[in-house]
């Protein structure tokens, strides 16, 4: 009984099967012809370069993603060093693929937040009730007394694709283990507090302040602001005082006795280490040594 049914089924179904087979074959032939006739020449180098990139589409290079950067770099080799997360490794690989010699590039750039004021250190005039974004808080008048310091609403956190930035106690803190150096945070900060710094050492010394007001004003509004006293500048010439603010020349920086003394002499403790194994910044002295200018 079952067998008979199967036989009947086969009898009625085989033409349909044949039609499907015929259709499939004809489409396959059409596609085959199309693939040969309409073939797009892809530079194998582009494919190779794409493979050499980190493929995280962060956009640090200025292109829409890794594949468009690969295409661009194959055409214009001068763009080689643009991939920040790939760094020197990716640059070397791309150079190899393109048969080019590249000069030794500097150390990879990593962001440093030029502020160290946590909630307790800042002076707040009035409670901000607006949109919790730095860019809108910055547009409003004096959300906090310091017109230069970290606002702590986390525009940089939102911009970071690698979870490498967090607001800890009202201050943006970089997690250097996760950071790829793409620079998205530096572009997002409305106060330009985040700078991309060449990390020649594992930890970099920095002046974690951007306050350009005079020492007295800075002192009155922030416990850990640079007062421009010039004690660091007297120790070593890698520091310079511009507009009441100490600046560290990152190109010249190296850790030696002079820089260590400069750091320890800083009355407000604004010279700190930032990096993978950076020690905790020291608390500023309650009564700072009288600054001699």
């Amino acid at each position: 009984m079952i067998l008979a049914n199967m036989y009947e089924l086969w009898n009625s179904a085989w033409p349909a099967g044949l039609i499907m087979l015929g259709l499939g074959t004809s489409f396959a032939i059409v596609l085959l012809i199309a693939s040969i006739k309409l073939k797009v020449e892809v530079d194998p180098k582009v494919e190779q370069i794409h493979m050499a990139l980190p493929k995280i589409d962060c956009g640090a290079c200025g292109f829409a993603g890794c594949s468009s950067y690969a295409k661009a770099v194959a055409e214009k080799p001068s763009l080689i060093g643009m991939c920040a997360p790939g760094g020197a490794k990716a640059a070397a690989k791309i150079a190899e693929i393109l048969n080019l010699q590249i000069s030794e590039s500097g150390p990879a750039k990593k962001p440093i937040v030029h502020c160290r004021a946590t909630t307790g250190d800042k002076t707040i005039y009035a409670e901000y009730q607006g949109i919790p974004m730095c860019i809108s808080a910055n547009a409003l008048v004096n959300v906090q007394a310091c017109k230069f310091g970290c606002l702590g609403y986390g525009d940089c956190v939102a911009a970071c694709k690698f979870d490498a930035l967090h607001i800890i106690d009202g201050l943006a803190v970089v997690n250097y283990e996760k950071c790829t150096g793409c620079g998205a945070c530096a572009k997002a900060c409305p106060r330009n507090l985040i700078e991309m710094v060449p990390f020649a050492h594992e930890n970099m010394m920095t002046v974690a302040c951007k306050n350009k007001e005079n020492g007295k004003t800075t002192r009155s509004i922030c416990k850990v602001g640079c007062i421009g006293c010039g004690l660091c500048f007297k120790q070593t010439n890698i520091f310079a005082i511009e507009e009441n603010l100490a600046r560290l020349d990152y190109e010249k920086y190296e850790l030696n006795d002079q820089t260590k003394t400069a750091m320890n002499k800083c009355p407000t403790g604004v010279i700190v280490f930032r990096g993978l194994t950076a020690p905790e910044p020291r608390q500023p002295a309650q009564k700072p040594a009288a600054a001699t200018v």
Partner: protein
Amino acid sequence: MKTNIKGKFSFPGGTHPPQNKNLTSESPIQQGPAVKQVAIMLSQHIGAACKPTVKKADPVQAGQKIGDSDSFVSAPVHSPVNGKVKEISLQSHAVLGRSQAVVIEADAENNPPKESACDKFTSSFDAGKYSVEQICAAIRQAGLVGMGGAGFPTSVKIEPNPKLPKETLIINGCECEPYITCDYRIMLEWTHQIIAGVKIAKKVTGCQKVFIAIEDNKPQAIEAIRQALGNSGNDDIKVVPVKTKYPQGGERQLIKAVLNKTVRTGGIPPMIGVVVLNVATTAAIAEAVVCDKPLTHRVVTVTGEAIAKPGNYYTAIGTTIGELIEFCGGITQKAAKVIAGGPMMGIAVADLTTPITKTTGAITILTKQQIGDAKFTGRKTACIRCGRCVDVCPENLVPTAIAHAVKNNLMDVAKNYYLTACIECGCCSYVCPANIELTGYIKTGKILLAKQEKRMPA
């Protein structure tokens, strides 16, 4: 009190926030505080910021020019007091956040309070004896800007331009913003000065028709101006009562209401042959041209339920908000928020050392109760798509769509919804039942867009 003057004209959209003008509407313009120190912002207007023309420790006279710019769209600034330049430094700015300012220490002895020029004008004023060039130069030199709030340099606005001939002049006396009464008091007390200014503006712009638009909640002002006009026999100047609705005093809304014409998005009123001037600006024009006095003082309404002596004060530009509040008897315990401007479009001020500028018409001090519990604590819920913001938007935008696009950093989407056409009147935020700060997001979006398009330093 209420007469039967009813405005016929209006625009689509808008809201009716509580007016609260009775706090200060009956208090005449008084002399403001005698200041010890003023901070004159170098950027008080739309356009290029001024460069200081004085140095530290220079002595300055009242009315002396202390900042100027070569740029066409700009207006010089002047010292309101006799004194000495203390410093040129960054100061809090109510709109720009922080900006360069010239800080002047006033002479303690030699500083008589500046009297308003309103007594010098009578109904028989004739603008015929001033030439167009003379008027233009006087207005530019006096540093006049739109005193209604936007601060567009008046000289640029009214200068004859053969490419964009002007036909209609609208004098904006709407004052639709709640609480503020400075323009109302000016209309009542400086009536002849305003009309003199209107005549001068009419002459310099070459406009055939002049409309003075006043909201119908100010019948006394309408009467006063009608009377003053009737005496001087001007048939081409008409007083038009318009409906009381916020934002009736917006330039584009007023043109729609009075002329039933629309200025296209991104366009300016001269494109359709219209010039709109605020009444305070008109009064300043008269003072600048006739008395040759620069814009150094303005009427500021200090108001709100949390201030001891609300009133309208003729104040030196550069006086700090704190000083002005102190002069008015200080703030009471209930005060929760200090706003430069009115409650709808004003900007909250955190730093009371912020000086008032040419565009600060009012200082409003609100209590927690007025702000509302939900708004005060920032309690927000999700958008329920009720469309109230769309209904009230005077520019026919979709605020909720723009706000969501900005929130998710989709600037191209926001741009396609005409983010830049927003006049930031605040109607959408006011009516939103979910308490979403729609105007805030749109403002943020404008900054983000400027940054992305590199119109602003990164």
